[in-house]
């Protein structure tokens, strides 16, 4: 190889590498981190990116150089030199990638071990997923439809599912785990930034999958305690229309049903604005949704687990709320 061609191919490589680096830097690839775990994931991500940009630059330069330099005229019938291989080169491009992927593996394994380690005194929160809603149970047995976490406190989430597989993901936290029926999975998160985030279900779980979201808030310690107090007192209050509204929201009814008082307009299941039946019918339709099907809708879509997942009081409140919301009566 002549010196001129080495210079040229190096220039191509630098150009390709620079372009790739610009794409890496200018595009917002990752959400702004809000947890220690995401910080480490970011580190792994950029570590891998640097190596990959190098490989990309080499390949791109080789293709560009070959196409520009070795292109033959259409009527050129000559062949290239009969080079069948080069053992040294072949060893090099076996060994170097092996070393690079080993390096990425080691970094990844260390980061994984750190991200799995929750420390001595984690806050334990039980997460229950079902079509198409999330429920959170705090150590003092308070339950809520939104997740509130104190800042800088390692949290160990225990995930369960009542029906099919769901997946817990808050992009800013990085961590993700499926909630699988029949087994318990865990997830470690240490929030580092106060703010409001979205919890998304990332495993296709049925018709309401895209709307299976919940609000996540990271707050300081005092606000967290205040939240727990509020949630606990709300739980013990007598059942009323307000509670029904809360149950409607936390049970995820709005993910599939339109109901004007709650301001939802989803069309996966029948609208709840004009229910053709009394309170007993409404109750039956919630607990055993396949008993009577609305015209034009399939059975087997709505979960039949609400008699288990809702308390009697919550069910009463929800039935009351839906019944009160009927315009015609």
């Amino acid at each position: 190889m002549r010196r001129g061609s080495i210079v040229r191919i190096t220039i191509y490589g630098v150009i390709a590498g620079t372009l790739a680096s610009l794409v890496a830097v200018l595009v917002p690839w990752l959400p702004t981190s809000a947890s220690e775990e995401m910080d480490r994931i970011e580190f792994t991500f950029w570590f891998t990116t640097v190596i990959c940009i190098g490989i990309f630059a080499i390949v791109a330069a080789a293709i560009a150089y070959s196409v520009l330099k070795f292109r033959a005229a259409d009527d050129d019938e000559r062949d290239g030199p009969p080079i069948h291989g080069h053992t040294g080169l072949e060893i090099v491009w076996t060994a170097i990638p092996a070393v690079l992927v080993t390096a990425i593996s080691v970094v990844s394994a260390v980061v994984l071990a750190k991200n799995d380690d929750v420390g001595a005194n984690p806050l334990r929160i039980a997460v229950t997923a079902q079509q198409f809603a999330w429920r959170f149970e705090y150590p003092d047995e308070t339950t809520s439809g939104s997740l509130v976490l104190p800042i800088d406190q390692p949290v160990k989430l225990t995930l369960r599912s009542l029906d099919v597989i769901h997946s817990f993901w808050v992009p800013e936290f990085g961590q993700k785990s499926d909630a699988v029926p029949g087994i318990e999975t865990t997830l470690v998160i240490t929030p580092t930034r106060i703010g409001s985030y979205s919890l998304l279900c990332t495993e296709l779980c049925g018709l309401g999958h895209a709307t299976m979201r919940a609000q996540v808030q990271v707050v300081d310690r005092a606000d967290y305690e205040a939240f727990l107090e509020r949630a606990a007192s709300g739980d013990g209050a007598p059942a009323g229309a307000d509670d029904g509204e809360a149950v409607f929201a936390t049970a995820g009814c709005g993910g599939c049903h339109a109901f004007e008082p709650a301001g939802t307009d989803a069309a996966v299941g029948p609208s709840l604005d004009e229910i053709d039946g009394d309170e007993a019918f409404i109750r039956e339709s919630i607990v055993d949704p396949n008993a009577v099907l609305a015209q034009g809708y399939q059975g087997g879509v709505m979960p039949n687990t609400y008699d288990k997942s809702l308390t009697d009081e919550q069910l009463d409140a929800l039935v009351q709320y839906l019944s009160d919301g009927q315009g015609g009566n």
Partner: protein
Amino acid sequence: MTELVHSAYDSHHAPAVPPPRGLARLRAPGYLRAAWTTLLFWAFGFGLVAFFRWLAHYDPVVDWTIVTVVAFLTLAPLGFLTGIGAFDYWAYYVSGRPTRPEDHSSHGATSWKDYFRVNTDHKVIGVQYLVTTFFFFVIGGLMAMIFRAELAKPDLQFVDTQTFNGLISEHAALMIFLFIIPAFAGLANFAVPLMLGAPDMAFPRLNALSFWLLPIAGLMFLAAFLVPGGAFATGWTSYAPLASDQPLGQVFFNMGVQWAGASSIMTALNFLVTIITMRAPGMTFWRMPLLVWANFTTSLLVVIATPFIAGSQFFVMFDRIMHTNFFRVDEGGYALGYQHIFWFYSHPAVYIMMLPGFGIISEVIAVFSRKPIFGYRLMALSLMGILVLGFSVWAHHMFVAGMAPWLRVPMMVTSMIIAVPTGIKIFSWLATMWEGRIHLRTPMLFALGFLSMFVLGGLSGIFLASVPIDIAASDTYFIVAHIHYVLFGGSVFTIFAGVYYWFPKMTGRMYNERLGKLHFWLTFIGFNGTFFPMHWVGLQGMPRRVSDYSEQFGNWNMVVSLFSFLLGASTIIFFYNVIQSWHRGPIAPGNPWRALTLEWQVSSPPPVFNFDEIPQVVAGPYEYGIPGARHAVLNGGHAPVVADAVHEEARR
């Protein structure tokens, strides 16, 4: 060996039987007979279900779910296959009647009608495969156009959620099981026997049967749209337990996979036997073209892995119709078991969809660079390396699934190591081009497009192999981007390269070079515009398989959708070019690319039995640059140069 090949050419040719007339046409193999046998078999299935349910006092006697599985999805297709004559020879043999002497009436094609019959000629079957698979490519692509239109803006505009989920599931199922896997089988069907110097595949009747299972599987997938509740809507992965309780359409996926899988397995067996036993004299394993090597390894993957997906789909269906409890958690089933079995097939399936493409690229790059493949033996060995490693990485699809935590690091390491044999292939192709005389014809453009895009797909694969990054990226659009860089930028580009490369050999006519290049550039631009932004859209927080998404991703999704329409439109040029050129393109010479492999040493299209005389292979397939070098000697010519000797000379 030699004698066996000889007999196929020139003896035992019985005179052709005249075509049947009148009522006899109802008994002769064909669509007329298929019409009544399909009905008959269906009625038999229906009666079977009704009779046994009546006998057992089950209510209702006619359970349509079971009738669907038994009568519509199992017996009616068998009736159709019987009717068109896929089983005739074996039926005669099994029933003890004298088998009819082979008159070769079902071999080769003289008119377009012959392509719609059971045909035992591997070249006809290859074309049948390709036309069928491209038909489903169009259908699957149109589905993508519909859901990309839906996704252009947040909220629902055109379709409801059930339809959306059905479309994404059908799109993937068709593209994987009815396009990429069988399109490679079609190209290999055409090329492999020719490249080996064989007159046909080892089992031509089995080969015909394998093909005819394919349209059945495809129509089964499509028919799911017609049943109450709509098409299967759980993604192509169809995870249990969600898939266990879906409307009836799910069963069409469970059963469609069986038909497509059976087709795959039988073809793979056929390739293995053909490659092992039907190589021309002198064609040692180390003289086989890399396309043959690639299909050898792919076929091994298919026969070992495909039964697992067949099993996984049967289990889900049994849970539904037989009340077994493989994956039903309430009854003691194990939900994660499905994923382990499914991915034990579906990860090797990625290589089933990639290795044949590697083979095509090796042919194209060597021929259009006019140089021998760099490191030929290591190229073949790296295929075998990928084959072995491919079975040890399945759980990298399950890093967030809740499986045993200890499995994650070992599976990460094996997944990373696969980058090594893959890297060897990439670098060897680059070295093959080095100092070559590169002709940028359309197949070569697609090969270069493949090289660059597949590198990007491979690199995003490294991100996904790393467990911490995968935990963040899993089930997001980053995955969608990765899979399309691998399966579109990888597999589909190689299929296009292969179709353009062998088009003159298959049709006897040249395609239009300018349209071919235009097709490439539009595809390349449309492809990158569609799939590249998905990387960051996913990492920032857009999950895959959602019909509705957060406002913040609206702009990028609009960009993606617009480019996807360009990508869709680019295939119109391809189809125009192919149809127009097949019809009235310039007549192709036998060897327009001046290639050395055997398929180019015969006329275009090749004679019915490929070679008038058994070729004698004298050297490796890629001896470009050695004056007078030949891969094989045909037509009784004297071996002009013992190229191996020259080759040794060149090495010194």
